[in-house]
């Protein structure tokens, strides 16, 4: 699969701060790529470099097969950018604003048809004649997204598109992103990790200007499946069982939590062997076992693990 975005050894140094430290990032065409990291990790800087807003201190940036640093004008129409702060002219009508966005990005002949399509796709029909300043935050965000799509860019960069939105608006934006996947490559930065897990094909985790993990979500998750976590619900917990569990070499961690029906044991196990049968039998011998399940590692936990490492 060819690459829509390719960053090679990109470094960005601000006076006294290294915002990006030799990062390498590859975003495949036609995928939704999640870009996650704590605040100040370097996500926005990376996105600005890709969009051509700021140049890197060193490194190589390729967008859609074009060397972005040497041909910035060729790249500009291929990228639709929704920055963290939506760039909206509050005194303009929605339709005029979108047309202006088309015009400054080189309006094509099919501009009007595309405008109508995007208005419909972003569900802006009812507000197309209204002033942007009078719209709700959810609508403003949709207008800002429409702005990034309205001139037919292939690559869409969305920097925290759901921040500050209510749950319904978040679902709307998520559905829209999912719909866009058919025609665009999307680089999405967000703090909503469950969203990334739900809609992204690949994920990059960045912290302190360094890329910690990048690749398909399942691969990153499986990397951490060397540790398995089992949740065991028991009616009561004896000291003997506690001691015997702690004595087992394959058990890396044991948390005991209160539960309305008794005690919940969270057992972290290392190794490839399937020890579920043995473990369940040992526990059942000592006390009444109510429930035994394997806990899948959520992206949030993967993220915490990666950043902690």
């Amino acid at each position, binding site marked *: 699969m060819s690459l829509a975005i390719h960053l090679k050894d990109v470094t960005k140094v601000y006076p006294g701060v290294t915002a990006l430290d030799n990062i390498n990032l590859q975003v495949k065409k036609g995928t939704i790529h999640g870009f996650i990291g704590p605040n100040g990790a370097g996500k926005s800087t990376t996105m600005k470099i890709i*969009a051509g807003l700021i140049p890197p201190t060193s490194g190589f940036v390729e967008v859609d097969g074009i060397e972005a640093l040497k041909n910035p004008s060729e790249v500009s129409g291929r990228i639709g950018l929704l920055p963290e702060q939506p*760039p909206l002219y509050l005194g303009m009508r929605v339709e005029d604003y979108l047309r202006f966005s088309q015009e*400054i990005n080189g309006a094509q002949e099919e501009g009007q048809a595309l405008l109508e399509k995007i208005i419909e796709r972003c569900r802006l029909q009812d507000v197309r004649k209204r002033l942007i300043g009078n719209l709700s935050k959810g609508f403003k965000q949709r207008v800002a997204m429409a702005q990034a799509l309205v001139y037919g860019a292939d690559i869409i960069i969305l920097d925290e598109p759901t921040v500050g939105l209510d749950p319904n608006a978040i679902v709307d934006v998520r559905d829209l992103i999912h719909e866009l996947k058919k025609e665009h490559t999307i680089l999405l930065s967000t703090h909503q990790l469950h969203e990334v897990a739900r809609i992204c094909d690949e994920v990059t985790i960045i912290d302190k200007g360094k890329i910690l993990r990048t690749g398909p979500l399942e691969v990153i998750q499986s990397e951490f499946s060397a540790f398995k976590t089992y949740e065991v619900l028991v009616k009561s917990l004896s000291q003997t069982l506690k001691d015997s569990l702690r004595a087992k070499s394959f058990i890396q961690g044991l948390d005991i939590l209160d539960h309305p029906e008794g005690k919940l044991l969270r057992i972290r196990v290392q190794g490839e062997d399937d020890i579920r049968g043995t473990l369940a039998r040992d526990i059942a011998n000592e006390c009444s076992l109510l429930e035994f399940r394997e806990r899948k590692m959520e992206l949030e936990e993967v993220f915490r693990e990666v950043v902690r490492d």
Partner: protein
Amino acid sequence: MTKVKVLVRGTYVLMKKELKENFLSPMVYILSALFCILMGWLFFNYLIASKELTDQTLTQSVLLPIFGNMNFIFLFLAPILTMRSFAEEKKLHTLELLLTSRLSHFEIIIGKILANFITSAFMISLTLIFPIVLAMSGYSHWSIVFSSYGGVLLSVLCYITVGCFASSMTENLVVSALLGFCILLGLMLFSITGNATNNLLLAQFFQYLAIPFHFESFVRGGIRSFNFIYLFSFMGFFTYLTHLSLESRRW
């Protein structure tokens, strides 16, 4: 040729948007009203006073001071008109929209300068009533009127380039207007800086650097080629500074 076409088109698109924004905001109308009241009052006074100054022509007693005042008033109005140009774009984060578009820095800057210039020309056009009033009393020295208006327009264009530069330096509208005004006032003071030296060449050099010195040539009807060279290189210099200011975001 195509490149020029693209450049003109980009500039036109931005200028159209800026003009629409300018004329949809109450600011232009408030400033125009103030300008009209001030200029009308001054014109009336000069006209009344001209009856006493029998040894002077209408050009000397009315037009010269009126155009001088008009030029001076725009020293304050131009930074107010241009303060929004870049400062508000920065504040609303819409500058990113322009900078990631296909528009070049020069298209953005020239589009904004032209929009503000047209807005100023609209305000100045409101004073066309003065020559009409003068024509009713038999005034016919039209070449001076044309060259004076030309001088005011060129001078205001210079003020606007300075205002746009000041606006590109900050995202605070008040700071932008004050900075623009300070630069313009500083440049105007060049004309009296010449008094501080006995060196004639240096004095003339300082005078040459002040806009009013060149403006006077237009009002007196003695336009020289160096007036144009100065005014256009002044605009070019501040347009370039604005470009550097926008470029500095990438440093």
